[in-house]
Each structure stands twice: as C-alpha cells, then as structure tokens.
C-alpha cells in the first residue's frame, strides 16, 4: 500500500526546509454522516520528524487540524542526500512512517 506521507525536504546552505502532506481524514467528531450520526473523532495525534537519530520537529495535533494535514518547518544541520524520517500515530493507534532523502 502506498505511504500516506508525502514529503519535500530541500537543503539550501545549512538549512533544510521540510514540507509534508499526510493523507488522513482528520475527522473532528463534530460532523454527521448521511444517516445523521456523528462520525467519531479520528485524527493524527503526533507527527515526528527525525534526522540523524535526533528529533528535529514534533507536531501534536488535535481534531482542528485540516483533513490531509500539511505542515512546513525548517531545521539546521541537514544536507542533500541525508535521510529524514517521518512517523505519525493517530487516536486509534494507527500509524505510518516514511524515510525520505533530503534534496
């Protein structure tokens, strides 16, 4: 199955800019389905970004983060060719991870 994680990590000088889009419904728990019943909350809770064995960014998300969530940040110390690991876990215990190369 294809990964739910898309990432673009680009190094420029000693700064790496990371953009990530994750496929996830991010159901808030406030929306009703066609039958009129509430769709239970189902959202990513933690996203972790690791470079060279170190955490460079951690996102704690609640139900107010948009569907197919996006995040952008930058960190120092990465260079082209390095691995960047992204992993997430949601409120139902599901998870996914991806290792991408910094461009």
């Amino acid at each position, binding site marked *: 199955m294809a990964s739910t994680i*898309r990432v673009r990590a680009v190094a420029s000088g000693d700064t790496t800019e990371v*953009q*990530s889009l994750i496929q996830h419904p991010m159901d808030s728990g406030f929306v009703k389905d066609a039958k009129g019943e509430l769709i239970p909350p189902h959202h990513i809770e933690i996203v972790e970004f690791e470079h060279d064995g170190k955490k460079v960014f951690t996102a704690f998300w609640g139900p107010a983060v948009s*569907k*197919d969530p996006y995040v*952008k940040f930058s960190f120092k110390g990465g260079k082209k060719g390095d691995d960047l690991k992204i992993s997430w876990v949601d409120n139902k215990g599901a998870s996914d991870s991806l290792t991408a190369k910094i461009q």
Partner: protein
Amino acid sequence: MRRASWVATVVAALAAPLLASAAQPAGAPDPQADFKAFRSYFTQRFPSLKLSDFANGPYSMDEGLRKQWEAIEQFPPYEFALDKGKELFNTPFKNGKTYADCFPNKGLGIRQTYPYFDDKSGEVITLELAVNRCREANGEAPYDYVKDDMAAVTAYMAYTSRGKPMDIKIPKDSRALAAYEKGKEYFYTRRGQLNFSCASCHVQNPGQHIRTEVLAPALGILNAMPIYRSEWGSMGTISRRFMTCNSQVRGVPLKPQDENYRDVEYFLSYMANGLPVSGPGSRP
C-alpha cells in the same frame, strides 16, 4: 443510438438563434465571432489581468483568496488524487491493454483537445466520456463520472497537459455547430428557482461575492478541472461542478455527461482556446 437525437439537435439549432441573447444575429452560428466578443468582454472588464490568469478562476479576482490559494498550492490537496490517477492510468486492464491504447499520444498531454466533436457518432466527446468508453471497450466497468477514480485519472491526464493552451476545434459540420450553439444556449438560459443562468454569475458578476463565494469569470472557467474543492473535501469533475451549480440555483441537476453538459463544456472550452490548462486545481 445517437442518430435520432442529432436530427433533433439540428432542428433545435435552427430554432436556437431566436432564443439566444440580443447580441446574437439571426442566422448561421459563428463561433469565431462569439469567441472574439467573449474574449474582448473579459479583457476589457479586467484590463490589468494577464490572459492566462483567467484560468485561475476566483483567485484571479481576489487578493485575499489568492494568498490562501498560493499557500495551499505549495503542497496541494490533490496530490494524492494525482498519484492515484497516475497509478490507475498505468495499470493495464484485465485484457492487458491500457489507456494508452485508446488515446492519441498514449493519452499524455492531450487534455487540451477535449472536448472534441466526433463526426462518426455525431456527438461531443469529453475526456471523461472517452475514459469510460475506453474502459468499456476493454471489458472494464465504467467509473462514476463525478469523483474518485474518474477524477483521479483525469487529474493525471490534465496534469500532463499543464501549461498547454486549450485547442478546441469546431469542424465545419452542421452537427458540430449545432452542438456548440446548444451549449451556448444552455450557458445563457436562466434556470432554477433562483432563475440564474451561468452568465448571470460568471459573465455579469465575476469577482463579486455571492454569499460566501467569489465568482469566477466564465473565461477559462474549466481550465483548472478536475478540482479539489475544500467544500467537498475531495476531487470532482466538470460533471460534478455542473450538477452542484444546477442545485445551487435550485434547479434540477442533469445526469453527469448529459448532452447539455457536454455541449456547454464544448462551448466554454472553445471560448478558452489559447488559455493554458491549469488542472488539476484547488478551489474553495
């Protein structure tokens, strides 16, 4: 199956000029004259807009919306549909053939030539119709016309044409001209409880708000299709948008790929000739 209906179409087309707007002289359809008038109306109304920018719909009309759109385009929500579409496009059918076998140029970089008039069947063929005919000809079940897999595949095909100028042909064939005229008539006809025509919003009021939406100009309005609409939280095709527009003016939506929808798509796409394909797109 279509023979009887094209006769009816020609008969209707003869009556059409009488129903068309005041600017239309009675007599033979003249798409080129319409094209010039349509183009100059929009360029005169929005003189500071680059021609290609009309293909960006409401974002060409409102600075605040444009900023949000540019932020979202950095990593757009249709990315997943695009990846899925590419995978679907490249996956062979059960009989071993692929979409590449149905389309010119292996199906890549051709979206700007759709819809076209098929002189053999006497009808307007949209990209979606062609995709499903390809599937059926190869023993596969057709896709739902409005979203999901159809939107994914056409998103990929549109993406391979990004930047290419629309290149819609209306052959000197009375049936093609009739289809074009029917599409034009549909565009300018009022309908629904709100009694709006497509032109009411997209010719008379582009850039204005209707409740919460900023209206897109009719020029280039289909160039970004298929679209990921925040409102839908998913992808939708031209059929999907036409149907929801009909509902929004409290009219009865037609079936996807209804002849009227294909004809108005033909008309609008021809009007956008020269403007770049910008699809797939994001919209509010």
